């Protein structure tokens, strides 16, 4: 079982790689397309995976950012992500992991409560983003955000590190989610 490590390889010049992990192929594909459409100074690479661990037969570049996509409509997607988390090295969680939740718009179809996901993100000290990936405009905006995050995680923005970004994002999240 191979574990994803953040600094297992040297970075390639001007390149930023993001790994999208999620059970729903269609959503991941759409998000990937939106991200690639974004205007960005660095070269983007988007990898898609249903779950971790990744097959070790493929040679892949250093991954700068992992985005776990959870669909609130399906319990399976949450389970999938929770299992994949075990195959990620701890040092990834210093700002290079992010949770993206979709499907919160249609309350009636949600089988997972928002708080569940919020707790998960809180446990792993990573930012949680909400977006309805099926709506094109929201998806485009989220893609823009992710591209900016990716640029910072890949170190292409001078003066800001992934950890700095994490600290910045953390302050906007309320600690109300903690169970006493």
């Amino acid at each position: 079982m191979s574990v994803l490590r953040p600094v297992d390889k040297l970075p390639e010049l001007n390149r930023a790689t993001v790994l999208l992990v999620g059970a729903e192929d269609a959503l991941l594909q759409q998000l990937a397309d939106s991200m690639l459409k974004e205007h960005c100074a660095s070269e983007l690479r988007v990898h898609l995976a249903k779950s971790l661990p990744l097959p070790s037969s493929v040679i892949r570049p250093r991954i700068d950012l992992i985005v776990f996509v959870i669909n609130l409509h399906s319990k399976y997607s949450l389970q999938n992500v929770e299992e994949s988390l075990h195959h990620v090295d701890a040092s990834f969680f210093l700002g290079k992991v992010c949770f993206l939740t979709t499907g919160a718009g249609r309350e009636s179809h949600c089988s997972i409560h928002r708080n569940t996901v919020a707790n998960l993100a809180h446990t792993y000290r990573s930012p949680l983003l909400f977006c309805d990936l099926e709506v094109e405009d929201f998806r485009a905006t989220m893609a823009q955000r992710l591209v900016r995050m990716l640029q910072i995680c890949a170190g292409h923005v001078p003066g800001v590190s992934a950890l700095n970004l994490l600290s910045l994002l953390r302050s906007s999240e309320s600690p109300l989610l903690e169970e006493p």
Partner: protein
Amino acid sequence: MSANQQDLDPDSTTDMEVVIDTEEELIKECEEIWKDMEKCQNKLSLIGTETLTNSNAQLSLLIMQMKCLTAELSQWQKETPEITPLTEDVLITLGQEENYQWMPEVMFQKLRHDLEMVLSTIQSKNEKSKKDLSREQQWLDEQQQILESLNVLHSELKNQVVTFSESRIFNELKAKILSVQEFKEKLLVSLGEFLEDHFPLPDGNVKKKQKNIQQSTVQLITLHEMIMILINRMFDVPHDPYVKISDSFWPPYIELLLRNGIALRHPEDPTRIRLEAFHQ
């Protein structure tokens, strides 16, 4: 301990148009940084992996984050920020990179460039305005000159026309009147001569039968005189041009005038005659 390599990323953008030595310097620096990175990478690969479970995640991550932030802080405090010499060419190139827009040097460079452009635009506009102004001024002067000379001409002509035409018309009329009067005199004189020649008054042929005929001893007037009386009456009293036949009119001559249509009798009074209105 994961050292943050992000801060030392090489900024080796390939299309820099700089002086050769700056380029070489930058390349040298990049090579050095890359070597440092390789060293760090080797060290890192020796560190083992560590995965998390839901129970121990929070605590271990918090501890790790604290350590890393502390390390980053000490790194920032140690390092001097500026490596590259900021020449104008470097600044121009950096200005096009979106990541460097926050640097004050880049912003000042842009500002200076914009201000220079504005200055040159305004200067050229200024030149143009000056030229336009002088041209318009010239035109204005010319127009004013023309206006002045036209005014002078106008006033001269005005005076001339007024005084000239009055006296002229006056003189013309006078001359006309005089000539017409002369003509009239001439006509009357020639009429008189003609009448004297061809229609003389009877001489003393009234020797015979003087006792029977009650002839008035009134002096007969010539045909000329009769005609003159008729003409004058015609023009003096146009509404009543009739002249009473007096004894001084020689009857044959009256008949002559009447028969030739020169005189007309009054329709109700046979003793009155008038001149035919030839002029109406």
